[in-house]
């Protein structure tokens, strides 16, 4: 059974990467923090009696499920918003849609000029390329290479076969190489 100190140390070791993983997928700072918080709480609630060595794959599985839940809830919310939207003022709706579209475009597809000019240009390009990957490919790539899980652990965390993990990783690598080449980034 992991002690409070061991769980704290474990979470301190993974929290930054967990946040980045959530951010690559969700593209929203506050939602990514919410997801990480929920994943931490679920880990402590359900698995505080597990040895600390078993926590890494469990936490990754919880994190991936929490990210999926976030999107599922978003779909339900969008469904109700679409149902209610005809009742709203049309002008307001159009303005809001354009504003949110502009904000989304700005936040996800157009890095700021400062960012482009900074020394972090390469990192921004890599993060952008990762964010553009299909979700399952990104999950497989990050779990396999960033979290250093083996193929079997990655498959367990993703709830798929080991063959699927290898395929997702292969495709993710190829896609990332192509995207970075297009952006003129060489590693």
């Amino acid at each position, binding site marked *: 059974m992991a002690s*409070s100190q061991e*769980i*704290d140390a474990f*979470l*301190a070791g993974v*929290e*930054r*990467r967990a*946040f*980045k993983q959530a951010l690559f997928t969700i593209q929203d*700072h506050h939602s990514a*923090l919410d997801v*990480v*918080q929920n994943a*931490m*709480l679920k*880990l*402590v*609630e*359900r698995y*505080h009696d597990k040895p600390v060595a078993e926590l890494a794959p469990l936490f990754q599985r919880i994190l991936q499920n929490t990210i999926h839940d976030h999107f599922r809830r978003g779909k339900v919310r969008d469904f109700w918003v679409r149902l209610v939207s005809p009742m709203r003022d049309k002008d307001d709706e159009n303005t809001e849609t354009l504003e949110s579209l502009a904000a989304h475009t700005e936040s996800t597809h157009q890095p700021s000029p400062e960012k482009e000019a900074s020394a*972090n240009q*390469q*990192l921004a390009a*890599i*993060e952008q390329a*990762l964010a553009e990957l299909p979700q399952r490919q990104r999950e497989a*790539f990050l779990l*396999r*290479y*960033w979290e250093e899980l083996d193929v079997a652990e990655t498959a367990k965390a993703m709830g798929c076969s080991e063959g699927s993990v290898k395929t997702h*990783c*292969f495709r993710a*690598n190829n896609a*990332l*190489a192509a995207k970075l080449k297009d952006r003129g980034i060489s*590693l």
Partner: protein
Amino acid sequence: MTKEDEFAHRLITALNSGVREMDAATLQQLSVLRRQAVASQHSFAHGHHILSLLQRHSLASVLLVLFILISGYWFVQTRQPAYSPETDILLLTGDLPPNAYADKTFSKWLEARSPF
């Protein structure tokens, strides 16, 4: 190490440098969230023990609820209404309140008590 693995590791090295340079405000928020989660360990371990047991054994929880509902229904259906001499008096004097006639068990009781 394959060529694919080498490329992936170069990417991961770059990503790790980004993680190390994460902004202080986000790090502070993550630290607060972590402390809150670890602090909740005590309450999860003790305060919500029964709740977590029920969550883990959801089938048993459903069966328990069904058992309680069926038992309650069976008890209400088979319960014999208590005999009261006052009811006899009210019946003889015709002073029964109207809602006594709306009571489903009243007819059964009346038939059971009737000598005819």
